[in-house]
């Protein structure tokens, strides 16, 4: 069946009243947590993972996708009005957006961010719709060796290339892989790293790690640093209607941002920060009024916001077609697939066609809902920003308790949560990225599986990874990703 036919079928799934409701709940919840500093989509989806025991898979994934997209919209509101980016991907938005709000142009900034997010989200979802089947066709040729090499490439890019230090990123990744290895080895039934604690035989739950790092660790860090509640919320004085000049300066930036964001998001490297930075610098270069940059240039909001949302759609491409998560949120969504016993990978589109196409269709619907939620109703979200920090973080930790204690009513889980929270605090303090921990934890055991499969087929011959051309290409790319900054520096020094 052709792509459009399948998409139509997907709309049939997504437009049932129950699934529309899930999508609506998702986008509302997503916008709310995107607006609130300290709460992100990865943490929220982790806390909602227990739903996978009760609700059908399609409904849950439509909910999660709504949260994921909604958080991108909500994050920009916080960046513009509070100058405290709600999400790492909206740091750039704060640069110009907050300046615009200070000059009394907050309404226009919110409008160009929301409409740009809608345009880019729709373009990105279109990209996902038509790229996914192509990637699947290609991926069906992959054997275990290629999969393992692809995972190595993803590991390297998410931990070593993004972020400030390759060594610290890799250390976080290895720690995550180790957490993923704890428990009974599925192939041999051997217990690994359980330290004689019965609760660890089933492995460490990803909910505990995500909540520990993102809720407990973050709260400890903010409390220790007094990083809360100092910024004033800027009022929106102007109307949300953009002037003719705003439109003419915005629409090209939206399109350029989308075209930058989607491909970068769809690469096995992923990440929304890089495309937002790129878009900002391109807009600054191309702008007819470059002198406005730094004082509230509307292109500087429109472009990065579009890039951010398009890359969010892009990240879903490797997730849904290869089972390869490139962000913490995608990794937790992958663990939801596992909890349903669904194997994410190239077969997903065929075996779970209704689920995947229903999910993709729900993204189109969610985008429309988000545009309505974030433009006329923006005043509602601004009110959420007024929750005082002491109450907000008190509530977050109570939710963290529910999320972990509710799994098995075991104090061991809470102790583990606090231990990981303490580690998360140290990681924040000493500038280690936390997303590689989650990605390593989910993807590590899968990589091990592929590695052992490849070795079984090749009868223990490790060179198989280097003799198969596709596998070798992926490994060379991974090596280049790590080494190219060093090579570049060495080359520049040699020239001068």
């Amino acid at each position, binding site marked *: 069946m052709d792509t459009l036919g399948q998409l139509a079928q997907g709309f049939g799934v997504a437009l049932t009243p129950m699934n529309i409701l899930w999508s609506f709940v998702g986008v509302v919840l997503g916008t709310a947590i995107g607006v609130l500093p300290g709460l992100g989509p990865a943490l929220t989806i982790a806390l909602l993972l227990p739903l996978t025991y009760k609700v059908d898979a399609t409904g849950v994934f439509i909910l999660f996708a709504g949260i994921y997209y909604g958080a991108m919209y909500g994050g920009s509101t916080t960046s513009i009005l509070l100058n405290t980016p709600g999400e790492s991907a909206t740091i750039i938005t704060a640069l110009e957006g907050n300046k615009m709000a200070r000059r009394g142009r907050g309404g226009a900034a919110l409008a160009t961010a929301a409409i740009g997010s809608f345009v880019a989200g729709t373009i990105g979802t279109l990209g996902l719709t038509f790229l996914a089947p192509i990637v699947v066709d290609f991926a069906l040729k992959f054997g275990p060796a290629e999969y393992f090499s692809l995972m190595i490439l993803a590991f390297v890019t998410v931990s070593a290339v993004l972020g400030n230090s390759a060594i610290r990123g890799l*250390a976080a990744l290895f720690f995550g892989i*180790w957490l993923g290895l704890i428990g009974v080895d599925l192939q041999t039934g051997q217990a*690994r790293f359980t330290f004689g604690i019965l609760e660890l035989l089933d492995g460490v739950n990803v909910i505990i790690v995500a909540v520990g790092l993102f809720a407990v660790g973050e709260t400890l860090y903010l409390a220790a640093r*007094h990083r*809360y509640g100092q910024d004033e919320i800027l009022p929106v004085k102007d109307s949300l209607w953009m002037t003719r000049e705003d439109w003419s300066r915005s629409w090209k930036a939206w399109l350029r941002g989308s075209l930058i964001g989607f491909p970068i998001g769809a690469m096995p490297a992923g990440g929304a920060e890089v495309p937002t930075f790129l878009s900002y610098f391109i807009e600054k270069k191309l702008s007819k009024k470059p002198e406005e940059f730094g004082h509230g240039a509307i292109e500087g909001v429109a472009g990065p916001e579009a890039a951010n949302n398009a890359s969010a759609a892009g990240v879903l491409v490797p997730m849904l077609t290869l089972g390869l998560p490139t962000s913490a949120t995608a990794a937790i969504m992958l663990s939801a697939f596992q909890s349903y016993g669904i194997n994410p990978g190239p077969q997903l589109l065929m075996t779970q066609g209704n689920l995947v196409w229903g999910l993709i269709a729900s993204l189109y619907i969610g985008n429309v809902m988000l545009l309505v939620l974030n433009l006329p109703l923006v005043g509602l979200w601004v009110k959420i920003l007024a929750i005082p920090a002491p109450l907000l973080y008190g509530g977050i*930790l*109570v939710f963290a308790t*529910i999320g972990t204690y509710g799994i098995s009513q075991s*104090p061991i889980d809470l102790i583990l949560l606090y231990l990981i929270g303490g580690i998360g605090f140290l990681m924040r*303090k000493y500038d280690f990225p936390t997303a590689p921990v989650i990605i390593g934890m989910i993807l590590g055991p899968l990589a091990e599986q592929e590695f052992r499969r490849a070795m079984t087929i090749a009868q223990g011959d490790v060179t198989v990874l280097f003799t198969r051309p596709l596998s070798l290409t992926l490994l060379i790319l991974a090596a280049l990703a790590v080494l190219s900054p060093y090579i570049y520096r060495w080359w520049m020094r040699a020239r001068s």
Partner: protein
Amino acid sequence: MQARSTGAIAVALGIVAVGLVVGYETTQISLSPAYSKVGPKAFPTMVSVGLVILGLALLWQAWSGKWTAEEEDDAQPTDWRALGWLGFGLVFNVALIGILGFILASTVLFASVARAFGSQRPVRDLGIAFVFSAVCYLGFVKVLGINMGAGVLERLF
């Protein structure tokens, strides 16, 4: 040369130590003879070696002053009082959630966190915390069916 950060050195040593523990625990995994080529030890060995090497690299960076990591602001030293309140709330929660039940344990946790974040109105915080925890309990346990265990107040519902 920048000043060495003892904290960074300690973190680097901690990573080496975790790597060594992983390595030691790997040798404790009993091996079934059927899996001679790539068994359950191969990946853990790689992780152990990786952590030790990365830890040593960080140790070198920290020792030579290239990595101080404490971000920009020395102007804001760690607030130990805030961490103390937070730690109290967390320990109280884990120690007493089984005895007092979720609602009371969470009320104390919420109020201690609020205190850690600079709130000066403990009575108001406790009130809000109690209502919030009770509403959460009713919502999650009665509506969503998540088991949060029994407790002093939970028996009343």
